[in-house]
C-alpha cells in the first residue's frame, strides 16, 4: 500500500489523476474501520489531512457558508459556526466521542454516505451544495442529487469533495438523534428541522429511516398552510402533533438488529413534533 500525502489541493488532484483507484482518507474514522474489518484493501491511499484549503471555512457575501470537507466536527460545535449553523453544531456534538469528533469530517460523512450519518440530515434540511473537483473539472451538486442510496453517492472516482455550501437562515434550527445509549451511538432515527423565516418555509430531514436521508416535503408544505412561520411565536400542540404524524408517514424505516421499523417511525414523529415545538417556544 502506498500513501500519498499531498500538501495542496493541486497536488492531490495530480495524485488522484495518476492513481485513479486510490482511496481518499481524511479523518480515517470510517475508512480505517473498513480496513480493519478487511472490507476494503486499498492499494493506493491519498491522505487529505495536510491540505490546508480543505480545513477552512468561510462566510460568503451572499449569506452562505462554505465549509471545507476536512473541517473536523469539533470546530462545528463552537464559535461562529455554532452561532450561524446551530443544527450542524448539534449534529456534530452527537457524533461519536471527542476523539472521533477531533478527526471526523463532513467530507468523510459524505464520502461514506450512510443514511445514519449525522451530518447528512442537516445538509439535506439546508439544501446544501456539494463541491466536487478533479484535475480537469469542477462541479456543484445539490445534496439531493449527491446522495443516491445506502453508501452510494454521485462522486466520480477522480473527484475530491472539497466542501459544502449552506445558507445562513433566519429562523430556529436544531437536530435530534435517537440512540440506545446517551452518547457514542449510531443513530436509530434522527431529524433535522430548520425554519426559514424569510421564505416562510420549514425544512425537515430524517436520518436512518430510509435508504437515503428523507426530506418530508408533504409535511413541510402542510405546516406552511397551518402556521405563519415568519411571525408565529408559538404553536398549537395539536398542530405539532399532526406535523409529527405526517413526518412519520414519510419515513421508510426497516427492522434490523438496532431497532424496529415501528419504533423508528414512531421516533421520527416524536422528534418532528418536539423540534417544531422547540422552534416556536424559544
Amino acid at each position, binding site marked *: 500500500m502506498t500513501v500519498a500525502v499531498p500538501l495542496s489541493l493541486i497536488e492531490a488532484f495530480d495524485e488522484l489523476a495518476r492513481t485513479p483507484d486510490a482511496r481518499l482518507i481524511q479523518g480515517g474514522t470510517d475508512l480505517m474501520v473498513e480496513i480493519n474489518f478487511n472490507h476494503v484493501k486499498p492499494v493506493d491511499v491519498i491522505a487529505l489531512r495536510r491540505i490546508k484549503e480543505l480545513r477552512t471555512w468561510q462566510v460568503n457575501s451572499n449569506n452562505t457558508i462554505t465549509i471545507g470537507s476536512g473541517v473536523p466536527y469539533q470546530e462545528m460545535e463552537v464559535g461562529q459556526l455554532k452561532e450561524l449553523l446551530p443544527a450542524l453544531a448539534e449534529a456534530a456534538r452527537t457524533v461519536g466521542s471527542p476523539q472521533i469528533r477531533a478527526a471526523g469530517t463532513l467530507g468523510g460523512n459524505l464520502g461514506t454516505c450512510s443514511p445514519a450519518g449525522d451530518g447528512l440530515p442537516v445538509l439535506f434540511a439546508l439544501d446544501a451544495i456539494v463541491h466536487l473537483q478533479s484535475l480537469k473539472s469542477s462541479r456543484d451538486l445539490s445534496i439531493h442529487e449527491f446522495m443516491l442510496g445506502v453508501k452510494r453517492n454521485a462522486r466520480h472516482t477522480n473527484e475530491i469533495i472539497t466542501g459544502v455550501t449552506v445558507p445562513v437562515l433566519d429562523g430556529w434550527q436544531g437536530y435530534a*438523534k435517537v440512540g440506545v*445509549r*446517551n*452518547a457514542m451511538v449510531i443513530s436509530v432515527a434522527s431529524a433535522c428541522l430548520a425554519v426559514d423565516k424569510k421564505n416562510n418555509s420549514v425544512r425537515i430531514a430524517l436520518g436512518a429511516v430510509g435508504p437515503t436521508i428523507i426530506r418530508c416535503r408533504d409535511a413541510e408544505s402542510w405546516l406552511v398552510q397551518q402556521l405563519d412561520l415568519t411571525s408565529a411565536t408559538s404553536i398549537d400542540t395539536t398542530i405539532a402533533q399532526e406535523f409529527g404524524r405526517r413526518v412519520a408517514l414519510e419515513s421508510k424505516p426497516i427492522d434490523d438488529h438496532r431497532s424496529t421499523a415501528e419504533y423508528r417511525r414512531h421516533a421520527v414523529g416524536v422528534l418532528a413534533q*418536539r423540534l417544531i415545538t422547540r422552534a416556536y417556544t424559544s
Partner: protein
Amino acid sequence: MSTVKQDTRLRDILGTSALRPDGVAKVMGSFSFSSDMWAENMLWGATLRSPHPYARIISIDTTAALLISGVSAVITAQDVPGKATYGLISADQPVFASEFVRYMGEPVAAIAADHPETCRRALAAIIVNYEVLAPVVDPELAMLATTEQIHPDGNLIRHQKIICGDPQISGDITVEGHYTIGMQDQAFLGLEAAMAFPDSGGKGVELHIATQWLHEDRGQIAACLKLPEDNVRLVLGGVGGAFGAREDISLQVHCCLLALHTGRPIKMQYSREESFFGHVHRHPAKIWMKHHATKEGKIVKVESRMVFDGGAYTSTSPAVLINGITHTQGPYQCDNAVVDGYAVRTNNPPCGAMRGFGVVQACFAHESQMDKLAQACGLSPVEVRLINAMHTGDKLITGQAMESVAPVERCIRETDAIPMPEPLAANANVLEFPGGSGRTADRQNIVRGIGWGVSMKNLMYSEGFDDYATARCTLSNGIASLKFATSEVGQGFVTLAPQIARSVLGVDDVVFETSDTQIGSAGSTSASRQTWMSGGAVDGACRLVRERLFEHVGELHNIDPIRLMIEHTDVIDTIGTFRISVTEATQGITLSETFEHHHRKTEDLDANGQGNCHVAFAFVAHRAVVDVDIELGLVKVVQIATAQDVGRVLNPLSAIGQIEGGIAQGLGLAVMEEIIMDNGRVKNPSFTDYLLPTALDAPSVVAIMIEEPEPQAPLGAKGIGEPPCISVTPAIVAAIRAATGKALSRVPVRPQDICL
C-alpha cells in the same frame, strides 16, 4: 464517580487506599497485556470458525491453504494427540469440530503463518464442505425427548429441583410473573491473546496466557496435548478484564498445538468480533415465579421454573443453574419452596460464567416479584423487603443454615437513608437528560422513577468443590517476596497481597514472583473468591513466616518468641523494651513458607435440592433513580444508592471501584447490553452494536459499605466483586416501571418496550 480520600498514613497496610502497582502503567499505556507479547522467530496463529449454527462437516480440504507461501501448519481435529474434547465441568466441547459444528463460530481448524495477513488468506483457502442443518435454538423445545438431540450427551445438560417445607401450602395473596433475561457479554477490553513456546524436542510447552485460572487451564490443555501436566507450564500474561469469560478454554489448546507442530513460538490474538464468538456469554433465561404470602406481605412459599439456555456445550451451565435455583428466595426468609430448574443445550453460543453467575437471572425475577407483592399488599417496596429480610441463622430453601453475617435489614435501611438526588432542574444540562447528546428530550418529556433491588450472592465454589488457594511468602533482608498463581484480572489482588504482607510482617517492600503454575493452584479469579481465598493463603503464608521470624529473633536475643509482635516495621518484645526493625532482623537470612487456604466443606444437593451446598453469602441493596423519556423510551439512570455487606473494607479505593464498575455492568444489562440472536446467528458482534454504558450513561453512585466482619473469612472481608452488578439491574427496571407504569418483564429493556 466517587472520590476516595487518600490516607495520610505512609504505609500501605490493610485498610488504606493503597494504589495499584500497575495503575500508572495501565493509564500511560505501557502495561504489557498478553496481546503485547512478541518473540523472535514467532509465527501467528489463527482460527477457522464455522459460519453456521448447526451443520454436518462432510469434508475439510486444507491442501490449498498449506500451499500458500508463509503458511507453516494447518491443523484440524485429527491433529489433536490427546483428548479430543475439553470443558470445565464436562469435557464435551471439541478442540476442533470434526463431525458437526454446533454453534456459529465453533473452531474447525487453526493455522500458523508468518503474518496475520497470510493467516487471513490461508483461512480463506481452507475448503470446508458443510451440510447445513436446521438449528435447535429454543431451549423449551430442545429439552423435549422428541426433539433432535444435537450432542451425544443429549440436550438436557442438567435438571434439578428444590422441594422445601410444605409444597402444597398456599397464601392469602399470590403474585406471579414470567421473566426473560437476554444474553449479556462480559465485554472485557483486553482481547483473548496468548503466546506459546515449545520446548525443544516437542516434549512440553510454555503458554503465556490471559486467563482466570492457570491450573485449570493447564489440566485441560495437558489432556488434549497428551502431555504430563508438569510438561505444560502456564504463565499469566497481562489480563485486561475477565468477568467470567476467561474461565473456559478459548485459544489455549490451539496455540499450544501449533507451537508443538511448528517448533516455533506462536502468537494468537482474537479481534473484537472473534472474541464475541471465542468466549462464553451470560445465560439467557426464562423464569416463571410465583409467590404466596400472607395478607401482611410475609412470604409463605415461592414457586419457580427456570430455564437457562446453555448453548452448544456444557461449560459451567450445571453450576450456573444451581446458583440460579438456590437463590430463588433472594435475601428473604422463606420456609416453603417448589423450584424446577433446567439447563439446556441448543445451537446458540455456549454460555457459562459471568459476574453474578446464575444469581443475576434469579434476582431479576425475585425482585420484580417483590414489587408485585408490595403492590398486592399495599406496602412500599422498602416495607415488603424489610418484613421478609433474612437474618443469620435462618434456614434456606436448600435446608442449609445461613451462617454468614446477614445484614440484609441494615443494607436496606442504610440505602433508604441515603439522600435522594436533586430534582431535575429546569435549566439542567441537556446532556444529563435521557437521550443525552442526542438532545431528544425537553424537560417536560421526562418522568422520574424510583426502584429497589436487594440480593444475596454465594461466595466461592459450591457443591463439594474444594477450590483452595496457595501462596508462598519469602522474607529476606527486609523484603517480602510473594508467589501465587492468582490471576490478576483487574480486581486488585496485586494491591491487596502486599497490603497483607505489610500488615502481617512489618515490611514496606513487597515484590512478586511470576504468577505461574510453578506453585499450587490459587483457584479461579471468580465467584467473588480471591480476596477470601488467595488473601487467606497470603495471610497464612505471611503468618507462618512471622512465626519463623519470631523464633529466629527469640533465639538470637534470648526472648520467648511468644512475647514478640510486630509494631509498624519493628519486632518488639511486648513485655520488655527490646525492639529491632524487621529489615535488620532479616539481614542475611531467608525465611520461606507456603500455605494453602481451604474453605469449609460443602456438599451436593440431593434429589429434592437439599444440602449444604454453598460456603458463604454476601448481601447488598440498591435503590435506583431514573429519568425516563416516556414517549421515546429512553432512560437516564440518575443515581444508584447502595449499601453493601462487605465484611471489612481492606482498601476503600479498590472497593468503590468494584462497586461502581459492577453497577455500570448491571446498568448495561438493564437497558442496553444484549447479544442479539437470530436463529442461532449473532447479529451484533462488535462494539458498534453491542452497546456498553458510556460516561454519559453512568449514574452517580452513593455507596455505603457495611462492615460486620465475617467470622469464616480469613481477613473478615467478604468478596465484593459480584454483588454490585446483581440487584442493580432489577432496581433500575423497577424505577422505569415506576416512571412508566409498564410491566417490563424482560431485560434489557428496549426503547420500544417502554413507548410502544
